[in-house]
């Protein structure tokens, strides 16, 4: 039976390496623009890796021994760096003309609100952060202006925390941190977008558990650590949470959900193969 018009199509993909995941997500955005449909790809990483935000400096990653041994890939989306391996990526591609294609916050709120609903349904006290300026969490670090007009030069207004999960933006999904009695919370879902000509690509990272493959100073607690019992929020059990998120996302967008059989296959117009090659290039990773 043909899929209903304007349905949200979702694929559950097998684990892949960084360049492949990035290229598939770009291809997803291309398809979303061509089909004028919301497309979702749920993916994991085949080996621990560090993904950099589009504007982050590679030297900031290389400066820390905490990331030694991790493969590094640069995303096309913004935001801070993410250590992958104990997370699940919720990639949403929305055509520009869609009602969530306006300001960045709209899609952010719809996708994150759906997870808050699902977690609350499961008894988890989740909420969306009121946020604060990204630089507020790193007070006292001076700006590092670079006014060079040379292509490739990037100007940063102020040094932000390097890691996404050390940042806090309006709409980030947070849950109370049981290790503290003063109301502190932990971010468990953050997203960043690439706004392309025909579509908006949003990478969301749901932290299922602390990544024990990296030193404790760059480790962030995930659902399993914060809510427990141990193991209950890790894969494959977390699939139920994500499936619930998908249903609520579709309901929030007012569209039927079609969970595709098999994995996402990029169309011939997507430039998938060349995108994989680009994301593998050292020159791409080191472009900042």
């Amino acid at each position, binding site marked *: 039976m043909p899929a209903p018009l304007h349905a949200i199509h979702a694929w559950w993909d097998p684990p892949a390496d960084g360049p492949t995941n990035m290229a598939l997500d770009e291809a997803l955005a291309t398809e979303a623009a061509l089909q004028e449909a919301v497309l979702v790809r749920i993916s994991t990483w085949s080996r621990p890796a560090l993904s950099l*935000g*589009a504007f982050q400096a590679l030297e900031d990653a290389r400066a820390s021994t905490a990331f030694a041994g991790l493969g590094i890939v640069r995303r096309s989306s913004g*935001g801070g760096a993410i250590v992958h391996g104990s997370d699940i990526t919720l990639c949403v591609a929305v055509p520009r003309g869609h009602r969530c294609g306006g300001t960045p916050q*709209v899609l952010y709120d719809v996708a994150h609100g759906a997870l808050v609903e699902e977690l609350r349904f499961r008894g988890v006290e989740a909420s969306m952060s009121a946020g604060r300026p*990204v630089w507020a969490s790193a007070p006292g670090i001076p700006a590092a202006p670079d006014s060079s*007009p040379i292509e490739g030069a990037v100007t940063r207004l102020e040094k932000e925390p390097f890691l996404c999960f050390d940042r806090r933006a309006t709409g980030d999904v947070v849950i109370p941190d049981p290790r503290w009695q003063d109301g502190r919370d932990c971010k468990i879902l953050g997203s960043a977008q690439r706004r392309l000509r025909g579509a908006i690509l949003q990478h969301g990272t749901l932290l299922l558990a602390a990544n024990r493959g990296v030193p404790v100073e760059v480790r962030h607690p995930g659902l399993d650590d914060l809510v427990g019992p141990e193991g209950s929020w890790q894969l494959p059990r977390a699939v139920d949470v994500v499936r619930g998120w998908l249903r609520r996302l579709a309901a929030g967008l007012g569209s039927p959900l079609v969970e595709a059989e098999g994995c996402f296959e990029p169309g011939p117009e997507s430039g998938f193969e060349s995108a994989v090659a680009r994301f593998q290039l050292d020159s791409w990773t080191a472009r900042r």
Partner: protein
Amino acid sequence: MTADVRFAKSHEWVRPEADGLATIGISAYAVEALTDLVFMQLPAVGRQVKAGESIGEIESVKAVSDIYAPVSGEIVAVNASLPDRLETLGKDPYGEGWIVKIRPADATEIDRLLDRAAYEAIIGSQPH
């Protein structure tokens, strides 16, 4: 918004100057939609660009967007201090917030862009 400015659907504006150059920026609508700008990358002076080609990137707290050349030609100047004072884009997007100047290869490309009324009709129908 000045009357002599033309717009691309991707929210860049172009103002033809008396010296034959075209000044390029991004619209007030685009700046407001992005919110909380944090990074900007400018192109190199001397680069030849085609209309529709990315000439730079701008990052807000949650999103990275390309800046597209609305006309073809050579980039002859960039607003080099703009990335250090991104708030200018919000305060004066059609003046001090200019981004690049291009020597157009074909000045009629500007005429084919949207006038103010057509652009306002487009942004009025955009999702918020």
